């Protein structure tokens, strides 16, 4: 079956090359049949890459270790779900996933606009196929998913233990969907500039895809944060890791674009800004892919493999150069039709919001890429850590949340001071009450946290006011019952009220971030059985050790050969709160030189954290047990000397029993973080708001609204 996959790749490349040529020819000559043929090349590409992906997926599910990528990232003992998702845990598989998702989303986008913007769409088709050709070429010449070994090994290496976590397996498809969706607005933006058609139609066409990219990227980022918090042994959800930052940057510029395109739609302003944002977002998405796939990074995210840095740098260079050229050469067509009417207007607030978002992106960009560039020139590894990022991003985040509360209560075009005073009363009161309560609670020393809580309260006040007033207005107009009026209000104004829900979700998310960062209690302590320590107001007691061997005893299918942990009792004020069971998994290194027993536990040790999550706080714990004691190492040594190759697990059983009988002191890491759950809740609210905003209005409703709007437009001007 690898042969079928090997045929698919060059066929896909040929389709891309043909499609690029046909699309450009069709665009330049106006011959629609060639433009259509170019578009259909994208559909054909999707078909071929689906077959290729299917071949690879089948190889994983059938444990076909003749495929090198299957042998390197899967095994017979890997659970089926993880085996299915292991396709994209390797360099090669992830490149194929990227290309496949690009072909699918591009097909959908081009299908939806097939009767409109023919010349813009033709250029966009060529650009999207160009991206496809790039990734397929990487697979053909650098990292083929279909390379094989004959004879095939009997067993595979298995999946990286850190990736055996459900959200981690969904995270890459979400993130890659976000990245590939970012290329669609970029392609249409470049197409609009090439075709010299940069008005309302192309904005309308790409809005949904820009929103979808934003949504998928956001989900991917959130899943990654959740994985970091729940799986990695450091207890945090965001570490300003280069790859985390790489996904956040296009999300920030995408957020800015979604706001500023409303200004372009309504007022014909910010055309240069918008097209630059679209091109920047797409380029940042490619740069994000470059960081993860190029081999430039040595991090948990960079799955090693071939160095693809040079091709990516060339592609990014071309994108940047082409973007600058197109914007500069078409600047006459991008002049604004109007000016800002008033600084006290929603347009001005959106502009402020854009500046803050781009500033955030710039700070993160500098902190992420400067060390890499510095290392490339000086050869010395440099790093910029969380304190540097926090110094600049925290004030900007405060400003962002504040603006997200101001925007909803200001009118488009212009607002009067009298109106502003009336509209800000409730939000300001919310913020003030919050401030008083927090000061009374004695947390004045946490200035940034207090500021964030007050800003979030301001947002909650303004959004609640908007929903209340909108529902009241609807009821006055239509005489509907309260719940009916609320639903009808949202259905008639999905974009507005979906956006309000997103703002609320962001505020909630930042409350969780502020609380968990500023009021966290963390303790690292070495404890023996029966020992205890205090973490904030909680007491944690080490009740007893645990030790299990072989995967079938491992309830979470981590694949560890030995799992050593502890049972902990958590109490507060003498009352039992939770029982936690952190452990550390020891894995097979696959190195026979470490001995019959030694190799079984000589691989990467992975911490399995245990957590009691709640609405008000999370109690989190990790353990680093000590198996280097003389007694335990003697068991390993004797096993290495005396046991045959396939009976090393017998010694592990003896080791486990010895550990349970005479457990040495273990190193523990305890964290009590308030309001962490609100980060995930806030994320879900953002997702819900995004879905409301992006949900299409049924066409019958659209026609009815259009007819009423037409009649209303004529009313009062004596026209029918």
């Amino acid at each position, binding site marked *: *079956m690898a*042969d*079928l996959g090997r*045929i*698919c790749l060059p*066929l896909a490349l040929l*389709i891309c090359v*043909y*499609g690029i040529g046909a699309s450009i020819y069709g665009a330049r000559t*106006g*011959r*629609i*049949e*060639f433009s*259509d*043929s170019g578009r*259909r090349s994208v559909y*054909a590409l999707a*078909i*071929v890459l689906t*077959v290729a992906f299917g071949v690879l997926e089948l190889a994983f599910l059938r444990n076909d270790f003749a495929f090198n990528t299957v042998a390197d990232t899967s095994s017979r003992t890997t659970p089926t779900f993880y085996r299915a998702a292991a396709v994209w845990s390797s360099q090669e598989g992830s490149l194929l996933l990227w290309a496949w998702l690009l072909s699918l989303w591009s097909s959908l986008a081009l*299908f939806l606009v097939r*009767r*409109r*913007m*023919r*010349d813009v769409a033709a250029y966009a088709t060529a650009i999207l196929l160009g991206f496809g050709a790039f990734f397929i070429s990487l697979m053909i010449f650098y990292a083929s998913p279909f390379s094989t070994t004959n004879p095939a090994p009997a067993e595979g290496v298995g999946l990286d233990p850190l990736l055996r976590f459900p959200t981690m397996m969904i995270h890459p498809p979400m993130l890659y969907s976000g990245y590939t969706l970012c290329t669609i607005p970029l392609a249409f933006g470049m197409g609009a500039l090439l075709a010299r*058609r940069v*008005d*309302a*139609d192309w904005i*309308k066409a790409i809005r949904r895809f820009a929103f979808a990219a934003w949504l998928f990227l956001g989900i991917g980022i959130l899943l990654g944060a959740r994985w970091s918090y729940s799986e990695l042994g450091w207890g945090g959800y965001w570490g300003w890791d280069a790859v985390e930052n790489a996904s956040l940057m296009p999300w920030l510029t995408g957020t800015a674009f979604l706001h500023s395109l409303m200004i372009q*739609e309504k007022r014909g302003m910010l055309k240069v800004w918008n097209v630059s944002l679209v091109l920047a977002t797409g380029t940042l998405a490619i740069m994000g892919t470059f960081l993860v796939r190029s081999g430039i990074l040595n991090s948990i995210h960079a799955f090693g493999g071939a160095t693809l840095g040079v091709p990516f740098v060339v592609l990014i260079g071309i994108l940047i150069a082409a973007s600058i050229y197109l914007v500069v050469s078409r600047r006459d067509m991008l002049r604004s039709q109007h000016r800002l009417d008033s600084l006290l207007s929603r347009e001005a607030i959106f502009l402020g919001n854009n500046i803050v978002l781009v500033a955030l992106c710039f700070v993160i960009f500098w902190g992420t890429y400067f060390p890499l560039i510095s290392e490339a020139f000086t050869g010395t590894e440099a790093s910029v850590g969380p304190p540097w990022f926090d110094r600049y991003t925290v004030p900007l985040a405060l400003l962002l949340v504040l603006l997200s509360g101001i925007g909803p209560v*200001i*009118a*488009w*075009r*212009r*607002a*009067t001071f*009298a*109106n502003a005073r*009336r*509209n800000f009363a409730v939000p300001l009161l919310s913020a003030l009450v919050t401030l008083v309560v927090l000061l009374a609670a004695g947390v004045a020393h946490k200035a940034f946290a207090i500021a964030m809580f007050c800003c979030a309260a301001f947002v909650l006040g303004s959004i609640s006011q908007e929903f209340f*007033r*909108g529902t009241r*207005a609807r009821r006055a*107009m239509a005489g509907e019952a309260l719940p009916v009026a609320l639903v009808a209000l949202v259905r*008639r*104004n999905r974009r507005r009220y979906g956006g309000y829900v997103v703002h609320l979700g962001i505020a909630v998310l930042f409350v969780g971030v502020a609380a968990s960062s500023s009021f966290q209690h963390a303790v690292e302590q070495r404890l023996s059985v029966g020992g205890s320590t205090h973490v904030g107001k909680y007491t944690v007691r080490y009740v007893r050790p645990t030790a299990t061997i072989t995967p079938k005893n491992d309830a979470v299918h981590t694949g560890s050969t030995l799992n050593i942990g502890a049972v902990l009792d958590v109490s507060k004020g003498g009352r039992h709160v939770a029982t936690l069971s952190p452990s550390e998994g020891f894995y097979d290194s696959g190195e026979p030189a470490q001995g019959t027993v030694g190799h079984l536990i000589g691989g990467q040790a992975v911490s399995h954290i245990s957590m009691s999550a709640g609405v008000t706080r999370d109690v989190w714990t990790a353990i680093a047990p000590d198996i280097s004691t003389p007694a335990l190492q003697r068991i390993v040594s004797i096993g290495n000397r005396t046991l045959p190759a396939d009976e090393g697990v017998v010694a592990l059983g003896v080791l486990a029993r010895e550990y349970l009988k005479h457990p040495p002191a273990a190193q523990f890491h305890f964290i009590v973080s308030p309001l962490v759950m609100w980060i995930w809740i806030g994320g879900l609210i953002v997702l819900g708001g995004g879905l409301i905003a992006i949900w299409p209005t049924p066409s019958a409703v659209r026609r009815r*609204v*259009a007819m009423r*709007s037409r009649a*209303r*437009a*004529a*009313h*009062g*001007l004596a*026209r029918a």
Partner: protein
Amino acid sequence: MQILIAILAGVLLAVVFVVISAPLRAARSAERTGVPAEGEQARHSAASASYERAELEAARETKYREIRDAELDLRTGKLSNEDYEAIDSGLRAEALELLDRLETIDSERPANNAGPGNAKPKLEG
């Protein structure tokens, strides 16, 4: 197994060829059946009118949305009556101008499409 792969590859190639070539075959078929192709000028004129119409329709929908937004802003207390009247009448005038321009394009459309004929391939999707 090799035969199966060869068959699958052949089927895949055939599908790709059918999908990609369909518009080209449809255009050639239209030429052969004697339906003359559009002249280049007529094609460009039709395309221009189509683009202008699409732009105006997108602008019209945006304008309707702005009218509704302004009304909602008034009802939710973000706009004073005076500001609303000024903004609303401006928006309605802009909307009617867009409607007028659309009607002009529609009334000119038979003139744009006049000539030897329209052999645009019907196959889309």
